[in-house]
Structure formats: structure tokens, C-alpha cells
């Protein structure tokens, strides 16, 4: 049996269920008690302020505190209010959380999750709109989850909380109110397993988060002309499910990557490089990357919507790879 819930509910109830199961799980971050977007709303009533712990405004210290708690037996779920603010904790995430286990030769493990919210389109300007996940694909030692549906959000968050490694969990602000089906029973989605969100045979489009939905809309439109796009959602960027992407490209011979942030040095750059070196023979056309232009995120709505990749740009890229 299944039921329909929102993306925001999926996150909220998974947190609740995992906190009920394991007393070591606790939440910390700015305003997690009241929760501006609602992901942690209502948890304090059940678990108290000790386990739903408001911190001061200091992203580096939120992550640092989570690291220390994780290495000594707790399972912290830290929240960084906006993905832009992950950069304030860059050393803590990219150097410390990522490397601490390695630098101690495996003497400690760091079961911690950092949840954050990405995405442009709310006219919030350059410091409340970024999608920063690509920046964290570079340092080793991290795992990165990018759920695009309520089903994936709940399943990946459960895996993240139970994982013994630092996991970055990117939520998209536009996805919070979206709804979808989830099984009644508890489930977890293993990391490194992409999901083919739509089957197709002419072009592979790899997309994440909100871009999955734009790619699906583009695919619907192209389908009316007889162009069948396969939409692959990697669901985790580290580890990356190369097999599913390569198998899809083998079938279609054509690849378009789509991400909300800048294409330069982005998620698609890594996927394109991987396919170019491991699946070159499958390719019938040069790979196309769809992403934002190389500028900060501007405020004015016409500028902001020029920044964010849309269905038209995905359709154009699909046409380009079809020649």
C-alpha cells in the first residue's frame, strides 16, 4: 500500500522515525525548533530541546559541533539553513568532516548528516539561492544525496542518518510542497543507485533535484514529436551510479546533463568526463551540458529566470545532440 505525502513531510517524518528509533540521533542548527521551512517543525514537542537543539548563527561551529559529537558516539543531523551558507563551514565540511577518519587511520567514524536547502527562483538574490552541491564533489570522504521526490527524500534521508560517514543532504526549496507516493512501510534507498525517472531511447538526460522535474516536462513535450528522452536521476552524487548512466547512454548514444547551478566545473562536468572516458564508444554526438551562466545569482526576476535553466534550454540541448 502507498500513501501520498509532501517532500517536506517526507523529511519531517523520517527525522521523527529515526529519532524514535535511536536516542543518539539529534538535530542541531539555526531555528530548528520552530523551523522556517517546516522540515523539523513539531519535533521539539516529542523530543525536547536537547535533541532539537537551536544553535547560534555560526555555520562553521554547527558543523564542527556535529563532527565532535559524531566522533564520540552521537548521530547528529545538522541543518544549514541555506546551501549558500555551506561555504561558511567550508573547512569544517571539506577538510575536517571529510578527512578526520582518514587522518586517524580509521580510529574514528563520523556518522553525521548535514541537511541544507538549495535553489533559486524565490527572488532571494545571490546568498539565499545557490545550489552548492557540486562544490562538495571535490573533497573525498563525503557522501552527497540530492532527492527530487518525497519518495527519494525519505528513503535517502533514512540511509543518510544510518550511514557511518558524513552525508550532505540537499533539499530544494521548490520541492517542499510537491507531493508523491511513498510506501506505507518503512524503507531506505541505498546510496549509489540512480533511478530512471522516465524510460526513453533517443537521448539520455541526467538531472538532479528540481531539474529532474524540468527534464520530465521537457521529455513530455519532445515525446509529442516522437523524441523519447530517458531521464536518469542519480539521487546521490557521491557515490555516483556510473553503471545506470552508462547503460542508458549505451542505449541512447546521446547525453545531456542538467543542473541548476553553473555548468562550469559542475555536476555535469564530472558526469560528462566519466561518460567520455568510460563510455566514449557509446556516444553518437558530443555531450551537452545545461546549467546556469557563470555569474552570481541576480535578483531581478527577468535576470533570475535567465539564470535558472528551464525546459526550453533542455529541449534545445536535446535537439543539439540529435543533430
Amino acid at each position, binding site marked *: 500500500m502507498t500513501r501520498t505525502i509532501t517532500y517536506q513531510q517526507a523529511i519531517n517524518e523520517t527525522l521523527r522515525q529515526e529519532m524514535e528509533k535511536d536516542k543518539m540521533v539529534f538535530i542541531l542548527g539555526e531555528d530548528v525548533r520552530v523551523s522556517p521551512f517546516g522540515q523539523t517543525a513539531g519535533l521539539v514537542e516529542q523530543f525536547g530541546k536537547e535533541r532539537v537543539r537551536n544553535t547560534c548563527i555560526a555555520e562553521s561551529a554547527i558543523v564542527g559541533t556535529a563532527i*565532535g*559529537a559524531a566522533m564520540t558516539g552521537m548521530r547528529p543531523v545538522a541543518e544549514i539553513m541555506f546551501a549558500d551558507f555551506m561555504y561558511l563551514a567550508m573547512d*569544517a565540511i571539506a577538510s575536517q568532516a571529510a578527512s578526520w577518519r582518514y587522518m586517524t*587511520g580509521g580510529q574514528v567514524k563520523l556518522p553525521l548528516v548535514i541537511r541544507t536547502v538549495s535553489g533559486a527562483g524565490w527572488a532571494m538574490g545571490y546568498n539565499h539561492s545557490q545550489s552548492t552541491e557540486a562544490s562538495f564533489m571535490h573533497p573525498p*570522504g563525503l557522501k552527497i544525496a540530492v532527492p527530487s521526490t518525497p519518495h527519494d527524500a525519505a528513503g535517502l534521508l533514512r540511509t543518510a542518518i544510518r550511514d557511518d560517514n558524513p552525508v550532505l543532504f540537499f533539499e530544494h526549496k521548490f520541492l517542499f510542497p510537491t507531493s508523491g507516493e511513498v510506501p506505507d512501510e518503512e524503507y531506505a534507498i541505498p546510496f549509489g543507485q540512480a533511478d530512471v525517472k522516465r524510460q526513453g531511447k533517443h537521448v539520455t538526460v541526467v538531472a538532479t533535484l528540481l531539474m529532474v522535474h524540468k527534464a520530465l516536462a521537457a521529455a513530455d513535450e519532445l515525446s509529442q514529436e516522437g523524441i523519447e528522452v530517458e531521464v536518469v536521476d542519480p539521487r546521490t552524487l557521491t557515490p555516483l551510479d556510473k553503471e545506470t548512466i552508462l547503460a542508458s547512454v549505451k542505449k541512447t548514444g546521446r547525453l545531456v546533463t542538467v543542473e541548476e547551478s553553473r555548468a562550469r566545473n559542475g555536476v555535469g562536468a564530472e558526469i560528462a568526463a566519466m561518460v567520455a572516458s568510460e563510455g566514449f564508444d557509446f556516444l553518437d554526438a558530443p555531450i551537452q551540458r545545461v546549467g546556469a551562466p557563470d555569474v552570481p545569482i541576480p535578483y531581478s526576476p527577468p535576470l533570475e529566470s535567465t539564470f535558472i535553466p528551464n525546459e526550453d534550454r533542455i529541449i534545445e540541448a536535446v535537439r543539439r545532440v540529435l543533430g
Partner: protein
Amino acid sequence: MAFSAEEMLALYRKMLLVRRMEEKHGELLASGDIWMMGHFGTGQEAVAIGITAPLKKEDYLFPTHRGVGEFIGKGMVPKDIWAEYYGRTTGLAKGKGGLHLSDVRVGLMGLVGSLGADFAVAVGTALSSKMRGTGQVTMIYFGDGTSNQADFHPSMNLAALWQLPIVFACANNQYSELAHYRETTSTEHIAPRAAGYGVPWKIVEDGNDIQAVYAATAEAVDRARRGEGPTLVEYKTYRIAAHFTGDPGGYQPKEEIEEWKKKDPIDRFRARIIEQKVATADDLENMNREVIAEVEDAVKYAQESPWPAPEDIYQDLYA
């Protein structure tokens, strides 16, 4: 407070061991046998040993880059230090950490290379022991220079807000890398900053007196253990050593170094031990020989230990 004769000798031996370890490191560098530069704590041994003495094995310590003092103080043994310095598989981090030593068995959680990156991590271990109800204390040890790092501020704030079992221990050795700390720090003292967070603080004027260091630290550790929250203690001392082996030097006045050599914490403790008839000069000379032999054995153990294999590079990244 007074130490027993046994305690005095045990602490003296640790200080001596630290000095001999670092001297040996210098020799091994000079002979080209080891390549890792040293940041020695010569002249600061009373702080490193005095602050760690009140800690229990299960307490957490976040150490500094300045020599091996607090590592020895917290219970790491020379052979584990040398094996890691030599980059061998017998090192506790299997050669991956090098100077970023750790020995989690004795609460040495690891030395970070980005100064100050461990302030909040220490808040995290203290929060964890409070939430788990284990009674463990966390100590974060840092230099005057590092006290200006950004995370100092939220870490003091959160430690105070949550009344965590943590001691902030600051060795003010008057130099931050290649400049006197007053060139880059606005105040003479670091410890009074604690007042801004509602945290009690103390200055140990004579950080080269191990008994004074111990007494102030023990009080702070006890407070933490009783659940009364954080304390910031500052220890005034002096870095007789260069910042690192091979730094350009010349920025510490010669007379200043000579003055401080007269206040060498090991010499002073030694004089006290002899004066109080806890041991004779001969006893202490025997102890010194033992310590030298221990260091030599440990170095030999490391030198004879196997190198990691290239494929070991992929081990220990993920749990």
C-alpha cells in the same frame, strides 16, 4: 596543592621525555633521517604536562602542533609517535596523519592542521559526553595566535550557553609564528575575553611552574566534571624554540631567549625535586639515561617498521 614524591617524579619524567623526544626529532631532521619539520615546544613543557595531568584517560583532548608535550601528557607512547612520524604502517593512523597525531584510545582525538578548526569540534565532544551522561571532560588546547581564529567565538558562546564540560586552555608563548603576538593581538591577555561569554577565567602568570599550571587546570577540570560549565585558562610561557625547524629566525631578541632559558621549566622542577629531597641529582641523571634509551628504542622500532603499500592509500576513507 602539593604533589606526592611519586607524582613529582612521574611528571618530571614526562617533561624530560618531551624534551628528549623533540631534541631527537631535531637530530633526525639534521641527519636527513626524517623529513617532517618540527614545531618544538622547548620551554613550554610545564604547560603541556601540567594541563594534561588532571585529565583522565577517557577525557578528550584536542592538542596543538607545538611538539609532543600534550601527547605524552595524555598518555600516547613514544613508539606510536615515532611510527606515525616515520609514516609507517605501525603508526596509529598507519602513516596517513604524520604530524596530525591521534590516539583515540587515550582521548587524543586528532590534531587539525587548520588552526582553530577544532574549537567547535571540542564543543561537539563535550556536548556528546553531556548528552550521553558519561562524565568525560573535553580540553581544547591552543596558542595565543589561534585564539583569534573565527570559531573561538561561537565555541565559547555555545560552551557557555549549554554549560558544557570543557576547558579552554591557552598557552600564551608570546609568539605567533614569526611575530610577537602583540603585533596581531589587540590585548595583552587572552583569558579575560571569557568574561564576555559569562565564562570564568584565570591567568597562570608563571606557566613554567608545573605546580601552578596543574593547580589552576585541576580546578577548571573539576568544575567541568561537576557540570558547572567551561573555564578559560591562560598560561604565560615562552617559546624558546623557533616556530619550526628551519624558520628564518632573528625575530626573537637573543637576550629575551637567554632570559627565558634561565626560567626553563624542567631545570626549575629539577631543582625543586632535589631541594625537597624527593630524589638526588644522580637519581635524576639515571632517569635521564632511561628516558634517552626509551626514545632510542622507540625510534628504532619506527625505523624498522614497514612502509605502507601504495594501495593502502584507499583504506580508511569511509567507515
